[in-house]
């Protein structure tokens, strides 16, 4: 019962946060709703006993990504004028009723197809009882360092590239000596 309650709360937080992000007109508010949604996802991970994933979700998304988003929203600034000096609309329209309806219908059909494909797996899914919170850290570590070593290395190279790129960009340009 406790796990069910936790699941419902987390799911409500996730979905509610995501909808609030869509409906909110204020970018900063949207960031906060996104934070709530991320917390809901962390809760979902916790419900299925993936404690390491839940904690990582909080460290990476709540701590890092949301703050970076807030920073970038603030640094890029905003202005009340929606049209820039070239007469172009700064914020491209998110669509009108027609496009939204078409997109909604298309995604509904796509979701039905995906569900149809997934149905055979879902139907034969036997709900295994929750393991007694076995530590997942060790298994994740072993799998990362053996089976998925390539993905691990590729992501580390990507991060290194981002680090060097940031250092190069933020470095003050040297005046050329004449």
């Amino acid at each position, binding site marked *: 019962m406790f796990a069910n309650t936790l699941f419902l709360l987390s799911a409500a937080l996730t979905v509610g946060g995501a909808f609030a992000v869509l409906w909110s007109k204020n970018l900063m508010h949207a960031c906060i709703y996104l934070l709530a949604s991320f917390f809901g996802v962390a809760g979902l991970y916790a419900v299925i006993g993936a404690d390491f994933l839940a904690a990582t979700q*909080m460290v990476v998304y709540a701590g890092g990504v949301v703050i970076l988003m807030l920073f970038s929203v603030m640094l890029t600034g905003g202005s009340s004028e929606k049209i820039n000096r070239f007469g172009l609309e700064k914020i491209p329209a998110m669509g009108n009723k027609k496009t939204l309806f078409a997109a909604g219908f298309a995604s509904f059909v796509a979701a039905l197809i995906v569900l149809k494909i997934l149905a055979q797996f879902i139907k034969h899914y036997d709900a295994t009882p929750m393991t007694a919170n076995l*530590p997942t850290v060790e298994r994740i570590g072993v799998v990362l360092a053996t089976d998925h070593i390539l993905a691990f290395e590729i992501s580390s190279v990507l991060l290194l590239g981002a680090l060097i790129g940031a250092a190069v960009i933020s470095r003050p340009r040297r005046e050329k000596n004449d």
Partner: protein
Amino acid sequence: MNSTVASYFAQSKEFQAVVVFFTDLFGFDATSFVSFLLFGAVATIIVGAMATIGGLGTYAERKISADLQMRHGPNRVGPYGLLQFLADGVKMIMKEDITPKAADSFIFLIAPLLCLVGVFATLAVIPYSSGFILSDLNVGIFYLVGMASLVGVGIFLGGYASNSKWAMLGGMRGASQIISYEIPVTLSILAIVLLAGGMSMGTLISSQGGMPHEWNLFHNPFAFIGFFVYFIAALAETNRAPFDLPEAESELVSGYHTEYTGMRFAFFALAEYIEVFVVCAVAVALFLGGYKVPFELGSGQIFIDKIGMDAMIAKNIGNFLEIGSFMTKTLALYYVVIWVRWSLPRLRVDQLMTLCWKYLTPIALFNLVGIAVWMWLFDGASLFTLIFHSTGSAGGH
């Protein structure tokens, strides 16, 4: 099942009696219901006690600063001015709650709450003693790092929502400082996780012993350096002087909480003082032996064997000794934090970033590699065992 306060008290006869009572009353097995009640009660006690410690922290801050500056400090309300924080609290509640006209009222409301929630959530994994821990999560320390990062969001949003230049600058500084210093903090924690072989608070502490030579601090030279890296970076993460740039009163009036009044301001202050306690508690748990008491007094086994005491009473005595050991070390570090604040001048912003990125981060990385090499070379033996025992019989601590 993780070890919690509930699983500790479940060993006692009284707990079983209460379970039997409720089982008869409801007609179903009431073990989890009683655990839930107990859990709620203990959580309330811990939050209340921590709020008091946060309040007393403000008192200690003023009293110690007064000592260091040859003043008296607060001495009117209650004995030695001890009740000053309650008087301040009453004053804060009575103040008018002002929201600036141009402020973003939704974020303005939610920012202090984010700070406080982030700090209180970390209390769930603080190990006060072997039995008195709300939840010994498998990812305890990692969870703590994740939750503490909410404080950064709160400070940043508080600065942004106030719509004031001082608050804005303070919030920006706070966020950038907290993000930057999270790296050396996490790296030093990671080094100790490597040493202990687990991320739960129980594992981290049980790898140490009660006597100073069994602490992780003196386990090897890298851990010794790591402690200071952690402590300096943690000071910066909690915005304490000499790193209190987000609220630098000589430049920014009061930083991110310039526009806050009354209880909302008090939330920020309370969050800061409790976070200092949490940071000190983590330092104690990771490096200074945690709740361990010398000669294995903490388990209470010696009372059972020598005096023939009842097992539960002996365990309770052991746990009280452990709480005492933990609190003594943590509050001693708390004193050092305040002491540092009133002794050192504030850093400049560029010096702050230089310290983090050019000194602390490389040193922390070096420590991480160093500890890994040490564990591989000496098979996890501490420096003490290497010197005083033959390597063959090492281990055991």
